[in-house]
């Protein structure tokens, strides 16, 4: 990573660090369907715009240019910010010969691919691990639960956010295309799936509970409970099947909220009737 900073001057570094800190509030001011997260993006790259366009007119033009719908997973969105900063620099240097609309079109084109990477890393891997560990501790009421959850999620998040600001500035728009061509992204998505699913398996085992309270009446003896037989078949077979059933229902396009209520209703009735 060291060569990342080689061709970045101290002034650039200062500007990019400012962009990095501002990027934390990127989604603080969403505005309707016309702008969506554009205000936050423009606010984040303001250090670059103020540096490259000291003239108020040019700066206003650049700000207006960036007020187009924007949305990229927070922790990777700084790549687009660094890139936009370097392109604004080009535009300022070659003012008039440079087509500034390309800045916005490249930024917009990056939204899908970058969010794809960001979602699989941060929602797929990091959050599943953080939640798995956090929920485990929280179940016993330990303060370590929320603390570990926040640390495990935010440490890679903040690091990635920082380096991507610089990477976007120095590597340019070909970087992402190259990353897709090199097969890295497909592999990354696959890895995210494996880690995420193993954590989901863990969370099903500890956070979904369902057991039968039913007993078989036996004449002249104690009634026999059914649950031990299920346990000897496969421990936790009921919670596991229930989760699979919910997954199947979602695959069949059932709405998530409807499903919550269906499960709530079924669980309530099963409990009320003393079956579970």
């Amino acid at each position: 990573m060291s060569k990342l900073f080689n061709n970045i001057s101290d002034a650039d570094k200062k500007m990019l660090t400012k962009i990095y800190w501002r990027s934390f509030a990127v989604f603080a001011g969403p505005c309707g369907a016309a702008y969506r997260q554009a205000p936050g993006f423009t606010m984040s790259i303001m250090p670059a715009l103020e540096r490259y366009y000291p003239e108020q007119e040019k700066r206003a033009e650049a700000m207006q240019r960036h007020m187009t719908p924007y949305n990229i997973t927070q922790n990777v969105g700084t790549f687009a910010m660094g890139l936009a900063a370097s392109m604004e620099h080009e535009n300022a240097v070659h003012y008039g010969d440079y087509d500034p609309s390309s800045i916005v079109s490249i930024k917009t084109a990056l939204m899908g691919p970058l969010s794809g990477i960001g979602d699989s890393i941060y929602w797929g891997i990091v959050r599943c691990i953080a939640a798995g560990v956090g929920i485990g501790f929280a179940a016993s009421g330990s303060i370590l639960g929320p603390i570990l959850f926040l640390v495990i999620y935010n440490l890679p998040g903040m690091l990635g956010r920082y380096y991507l600001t610089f990477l976007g500035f120095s590597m340019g728009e070909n970087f992402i295309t190259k990353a897709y061509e090199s097969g890295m992204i497909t592999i990354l998505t696959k890895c995210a799936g494996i880690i995420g699913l193993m954590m989901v398996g863990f969370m099903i085992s500890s956070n979904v509970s369902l057991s039968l309270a039913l007993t078989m009446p036996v004449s002249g003896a104690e009634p026999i409970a059914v649950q031990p037989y299920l346990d000897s078949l496969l421990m936790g077979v009921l919670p596991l099947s229930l989760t699979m059933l919910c997954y199947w229902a979602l695959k069949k396009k059932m709405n998530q909220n409807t499903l919550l209520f269906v499960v709530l209703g079924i669980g309530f009735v099963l409990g009320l009737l003393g079956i579970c």
Partner: protein
Amino acid sequence: MSNLMIACMATLAYFICYGGNWLFGQCMIERPIVVGTITGLFLGDLTTGIIIGGALEAIYMGAVNIGGATSAEPVSATVMSVTFAITAGLSMEEAITLAVPVGLIFNSLSMVWIMLTNIFQPAYQKVCDNGDGKGLTRVILTSWFTIYFTRAIIIFCCVYLGSEAVQAFMSQLPDSVIHGLAVAAGMLGAVGMAVLMKMLVSTENIGWLFVGFVLAKYLSLPAIVIAIIAVVIAITIGLTDKKIHDLKQMMTEGTPMALTEEEEFFNE
């Protein structure tokens, strides 16, 4: 603690967690596990807050804000269920089942605020026309405060007015109904997990879910150990895939090409 004080504390927890999350880089302080902890801290019962927060985290695992669309609003759900568990004497299970309808109602209310953000459009236009960077920051902060403060007011009203009603209602419930709620609360986690699965599953990787499940159920391994195993497996498979991919490319292109600077970067 008086009713007014309770409502203030719950509202504060809501504002800090929900607003703070979007001001500080979506740092996940809006997730139930954190919201529950902070609400519990403010109301003087940390342990209850953490336990309910953790349980709700599992239920709402799938409810994340991706692309601005939410399916449920876990923050209000967590604040209310923790508050009522601590102050109105609800059991954990009752509190958890209460969270579901609350989350749903507040999510449909969210539409109001999404529309509300439109009123700031002229202000944004004006600061951009003037090239006014400081003004832009000011409008964003104003919009941020307006949205989360008005949302917090709704929470205040619900807790302030609802506390006694919830308490009175719950004390009337017969045991069989309470048992029903407990069973339902245990089952709800399945929905959150299913939503996560929908994001992650492909036909070739679903088997890993059962590996994680069996390791946890039969060997009782803690989450961190399973995470380590999962990462090692994923890296091994990833590296093998990378080799196969490179090999394929070499075969289609004939001779290996000279590496450009970017490719060197990926190979590091």
